[in-house]
């Protein structure tokens, strides 16, 4: 059937069909000239619809001649008796040509639409196949095969650029064909595509695989039997699918990291709860016992031991949080004076036995930090001052501006720390006073780590009051 409809058969078929129509019409002598003309027009329409323009025009001319020769008097001659019939015949010729042309055009359009529909279906199927695959290896493995089917061609090679920009064969399907490397490199580097007739049928195509304007590789296909637009569309689809796969991979990795962080912080929260709950129970039991019995030296010692244990648990949990990266700084723009005020409100009680001075600066500076974390760090400085200064000794809290930053300072009048020891005092588990001094040796380390998490530094120096000066330096917020 397909061969019968081929354009080469169109002309003889047109001639035969017109002759057959005329023969049939002659079997019915009673028909009028108008009927003859209409039936012949239908024949021209049909021929043009099947074999398009050329055979259609031939049919129109043959039908006109036939109409004149067989049906217009005097019949069996090409002369025309009635001058009105001359006009009629010319009109018939005109109409037959127009009908033939229209019919052929509609047929051509239909064929184009059909081809576009086919391309669209292929592209849709391809995009579905590409986009459901989120694994690079399996995506590439099937991509070449699918492209070869879509292009109805003999071979497809996909080259992708690595980090250094070198093209490597990433996927292939079909016969081994010779690749013109310079055309392939040109497609990738300059984005120029090349199309030329294949040795067999179809076209050989070299074109860039581009994501937007960014080239990411080159596509080579031999014996392509579809439109260039279609090939470009498929290459673009492949690029999008590869890019999507990359993003899915990145998203998956970051999701894994987030989930790991979440597990870590949930574990830490559970650990905190599980450690502190029995301590709370113990403390409560001792206090209830005290209330019932009126208290004793032993219960006082138990309470102090519980307090030390509590502090140690807090310190250790803080260290784990900071070192595991679970502690995050929720930074906001906050005033340095507000930090001083918060530290006094929260830790002022530690210095109830000392002469505690708070010197709020007149000027206020803003810093971009997690206020609670910096307050905590400052509190650890205050606690350190309280611990190492004798009762009644002076401790001063203040803030000054220095070198474009803010320094929150705790000055004490204790024995001080010798200069060579100061750096070491900020390390983990360092207790300068020896093991006799209370504490876990974690406080200043936690303070330093908290401040560093917020983009600042902690240092120890000599205090004008005679003891140590604990300083938190923070950059001023823009």
């Amino acid at each position, binding site marked *: 059937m397909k061969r019968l409809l081929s354009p080469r058969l169109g002309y003889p078929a047109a001639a035969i069909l017109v002759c057959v129509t005329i023969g049939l019409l002659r079997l019915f002598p009673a028909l009028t000239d108008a009927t003859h003309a209409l039936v012949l027009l239908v024949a021209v329409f049909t021929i043009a619809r099947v074999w398009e323009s050329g055979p259609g025009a031939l049919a129109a001319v043959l039908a006109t001649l036939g109409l004149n020769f067989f049906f217009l008097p005097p019949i069996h001659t090409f002369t025309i008796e009635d001058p009105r019939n001359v006009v009629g015949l010319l009109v018939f010729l005109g109409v037959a040509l127009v009908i033939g042309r229209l019919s052929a055009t509609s047929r051509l359009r239909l064929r184009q639409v059909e081809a576009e529909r086919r391309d669209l279906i292929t592209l849709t199927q391809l995009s579905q196949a590409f986009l459901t695959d989120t694994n690079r290896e399996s995506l590439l493995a099937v991509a070449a095969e699918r492209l070869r089917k879509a292009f109805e061609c003999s071979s497809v090679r996909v080259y992708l650029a690595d980090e250094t920009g070198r093209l490597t064969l990433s996927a292939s399907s079909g016969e081994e064909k010779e690749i013109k490397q310079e055309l392939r490199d040109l497609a990738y580097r300059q984005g120029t595509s090349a199309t030329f007739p294949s040795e067999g049928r179809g076209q050989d195509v070299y074109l860039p695989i581009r994501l937007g304007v960014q080239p990411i590789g080159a596509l080579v296909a031999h014996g392509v039997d579809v439109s260039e637009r279609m090939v470009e569309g498929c290459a673009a689809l492949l690029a999008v699918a590869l890019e999507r796969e990359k993003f899915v991979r990145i998203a998956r990795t970051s999701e894994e990291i987030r989930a790991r962080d979440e597990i870590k912080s949930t574990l830490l*929260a*559970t650990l*905190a*709860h599980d450690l*502190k*709950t*029995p*301590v*709370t*129970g*113990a*403390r*409560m*039991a001792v*206090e*209830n016992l005290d*209330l019932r019995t009126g208290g004793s030296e032993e219960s006082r010692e138990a309470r102090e031991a*519980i307090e030390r244990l*509590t502090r140690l648990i807090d310190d250790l949990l803080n260290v784990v949080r900071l070192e595991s990266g679970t502690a995050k700084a*929720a930074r906001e723009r906050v*005033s340095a004076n*507000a930090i001083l*005020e*918060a*530290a006094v*409100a*929260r830790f*002022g009680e530690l210095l109830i036995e000392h002469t505690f001075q*708070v010197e709020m600066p007149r000027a206020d500076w803003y810093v971009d930090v997690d*206020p*609670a974390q910096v*307050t905590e760090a400052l509190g650890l400085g205050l606690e350190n001052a309280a611990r190492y200064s004798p009762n009644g000794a002076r401790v001063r809290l203040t803030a000054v501006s220095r070198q474009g930053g803010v320094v929150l300072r705790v000055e004490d009048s204790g024995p001080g720390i010798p200069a060579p020891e100061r750096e070491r005092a900020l390390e983990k588990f360092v207790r300068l006073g020896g093991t006799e001094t209370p504490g876990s040796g974690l406080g200043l380390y936690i303070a330093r780590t908290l401040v560093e998490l917020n983009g600042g530094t902690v240092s120890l120096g000599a205090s004008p009051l005679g003891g140590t000066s604990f300083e938190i330096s923070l950059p001023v917020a823009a």
Partner: protein
Amino acid sequence: MSKILVVDDDIAIRKGLRDALIREGHEVVTAADGEEAMEAFLSETFDLVVTDLAMPGKDGFSLLRSIRHKSDVPVLILTVRGEEREKVRLLDAGADDYIVKPFGLAEFLARTRTVLRRRTGVREAGEVIQIGSLAIDLAARRVERGGQEQRLTPTEFTLLKTFLSRPGIVWTHRQLIATVWGSADGATSDALRVQIGSLRRKIEENPDQPRLIRTEPWVGYRFVTGE
């Protein structure tokens, strides 16, 4: 005497809190998790709920939310997390107060008294409130300290009135800003800090060491009447 629901998954804490509260003359019902607590809560009437935050199954936060759907009974939360963000989250969700584990019984009982007082804390109109040397006549909008009249701005007066409506309770920055300025938009914690500072200068004996308006660092403020 009040009826108190104590919720904690740790038996030692349940027992410790129950003994202490019974000694104070309260009636105590205990529950080991959120579901059990909700069951008890729906079948009886309580004056106070004390709940742990981390519990298996329904935790303290969702218990708080379920309770707030049904009632405005005072809720005191026990938490191991001293993090300010967590405290703000609890208070904004309707908790009356929180106490960080491990806590002392004295502190716990003091907080219990404070939240329980909120039910009976409604003041008579026209009554003059006397706190130390401070005399506050809410109806006449008049504040005196040591016999000297203190002129409060309307904002300062609104703040004072808000504090007095629930003494001893922590107010988050957001709650105070919403009360004083109508909405949390535009006004900042800094603006609130300025107003609090100015109010302290008028009502505190020593504004540098405030006794009445206590700062809860990065959470809010608590008005302590010393009762």
